[in-house]
């Protein structure tokens, strides 16, 4: 059954004792219909205005990443004739202008979306899977295993992060997308492992886990079926943060020339040569790829914020 009143954001945000019409009795009855944790979270998420904006922007970026290279193909190795030393300013023919050798910056940005979004999503998944797995083991098993794993996590936290990325990307990357994803993923799991471990330490002693154990549920099933779903909220929020920061990291590493090879189009690669022509007044080459990064990261941060509110069991709507 649908609830037109409850689904309008105004009714919920400005409802209540101080304003808005009091809910009709009929609505209250239906609201008692039991909803799972995730259904409740989704309902709260939809009401978060910024998160909705973020979801729309990010969805558009994913769409651009999928369709862009098909509709507006771009070959970074094809060099058209430059019409002006610094490249052309934005015009109708070239919406975002051209770079110093006449390549269209608009196509560059559209095609860069695919690699940047891919890196963000897949490095996030790797970090999530490894982090949850290791955090769960450390938190559930405890003892020496926990101690050893947490020292490893300490090492990751104490290493100057960017330094390692630069060394790894330069020495092992050789400009491949897959190796960059792997490096970013494998360097960002410790945050999640620490979170998951902390949640497990407290949930391990919870009554429902005790009950499951008493009935004879196996350790693996307790871990994944009983504890993990309760611990997932903060993990998902942390994963959005990791995705955003890895998109920026890719851009930075490629900007320094340590990331993807030149024949691939990413936002970082688009930026990497832009600094040299800034002094000629060629701002568009640096501006638009950076705006694409900023917009994507902003959208992800909005989504993360909405998720934080929606998945927090203390928040009620």
């Amino acid at each position, binding site marked *: 059954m649908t609830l037109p009143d409850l689904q309008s954001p105004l009714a919920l945000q400005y409802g209540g004792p101080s304003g808005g019409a009091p809910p009709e009795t009929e609505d209250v009855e239906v609201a008692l219909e039991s909803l799972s944790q995730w259904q409740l979270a989704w309902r709260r998420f939809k009401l978060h205005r910024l998160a909705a904006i973020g979801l729309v922007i990010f969805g558009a970026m994913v769409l651009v990443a999928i369709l862009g290279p098909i509709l507006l193909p771009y070959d970074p190795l094809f060099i058209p004739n430059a019409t002006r030393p610094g490249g052309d300013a934005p015009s109708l023919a070239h919406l975002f202008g051209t770079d110093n050798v006449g390549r269209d910056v608009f196509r560059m940005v559209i095609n860069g979306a695919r690699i940047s979004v891919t890196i963000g999503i897949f490095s996030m998944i790797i970090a999530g899977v490894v982090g949850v797995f290791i955090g769960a083991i450390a938190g559930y098993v405890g003892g020496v295993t926990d101690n050893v794993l947490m020292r490893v996590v300490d090492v990751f936290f104490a*290493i100057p992060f960017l330094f390692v990325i630069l060394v790894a990307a330069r020495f092992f990357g050789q400009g491949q997308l897959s190796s960059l994803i792997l490096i970013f993923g494998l360097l960002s799991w410790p945050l999640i492992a620490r979170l998951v471990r902390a949640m497990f330490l407290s949930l391990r002693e919870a009554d429902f886990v005790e009950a499951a154990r008493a009935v004879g549920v196996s350790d693996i099933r307790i871990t994944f079926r009983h504890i993990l779903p309760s611990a997932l909220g903060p993990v998902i929020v942390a994963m959005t943060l990791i995705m955003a920061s890895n998109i920026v990291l890719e851009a930075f590493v490629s900007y320094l020339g340590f990331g993807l090879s030149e024949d691939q189009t990413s936002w970082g690669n688009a930026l990497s040569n832009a600094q040299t022509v800034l002094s000629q*007044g060629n701002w568009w080459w640096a501006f638009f790829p950076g705006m694409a990064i900023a917009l994507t990261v902003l959208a992800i*941060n909005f989504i993360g914020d909405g998720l934080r509110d929606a998945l927090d069991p203390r928040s009620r709507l």
Partner: protein
Amino acid sequence: MTKFIIRRVIQALPVIWLITVVSFLLMQQAPGGPQAAFNQNPHITPDQINAWLARWCLVRDADILQTIQEYFGWLGVYNCTGGGFLSAQGWPNFLPTFLGGGTNGVLHGDFGFSISSGQPVLDMITQRIPATLILMGTAWILWVSIATFVGVLAAVKRYSAIDQTITIFSYIFYSLPTFWLGLILIFIFGVELRLFPAQGIINVRTSPAPFATDAYWKAFAANPWPQIVDIGQHLVLPVATLIAVSVAGDSRFVRSAMLESLSQDYVRTAKAKGLPGRTVVFRHAFRNALLPIVTNIALEIAFLFGGAIATETVFSWPGMGLLFFDGVNGRDYFLLMGILLIGSLFIVFMNLVADVLYVMVDPRIKYD
């Protein structure tokens, strides 16, 4: 307290040791090496390369055992000039020198020599530290004070127009990539408006000597004001870049800490007693909100170290970040190891400071 500090230091040692092991193995097992510069040179024979590498106690295409040997050499456990694990005196090499141990390796305070420049690594690093400290110190002081002010303001005026504006701007700035913001600032204020210098730390045309050399400090001591003005002008853009992004994140943190504290019972009590609003906010709410803020600040100093690399490369700021960047390019193993070691020590030290500050700010917490 002393016991707590000692225990923390002892816990930190294996972590730092692991960091050096991991980074050395990572670097050494990666394809290529410092000899890559000679790859295209037909006049240099493989024997010459081997002899050249041997001067740094390195082996070309080292297998895992040789890599471990090289690592021990860097650490000071192994004596590559012939003694193996024994020093020239015939004692174990890792012992302190005055007990008959060797003189090489970080255990004996020897960080080795840079492969590309031949200078002692420690000298190169200490020469770069002032530039990083000037940049990061200025940025840090400014951003902590601005973030605290803005955050408290947003919390006290919650949901007002000011709060909303601050929120929107912090969302936007928080999403900007630091290095890109630097590029844009360079373009606007350095290239178009020509208000501030865009590159470097000093004006090389008017400066008496290159930065951080002895001659420079001598000129600085004789007449500091022109140099201070010079550095100050060069500081504006990189500091603005660092501040914009960091204030955005930190002011949110201060705001939520302050909101948490404002919603406590003792604040309501203070208000009910009829205390003036200013006293309630600063003496009651803010002092309690300081606890998470102080810890956060101390932890962030550690990140300054890594954060320097983005700003320093964009602005050609001659600090440690740029030095590391050059080291990665030249595969300068010992320089990289030196910076990594000092950087990790710094992070571990700042974590300890954060814990100690925690106790000092909040008398309810006790470690023992």
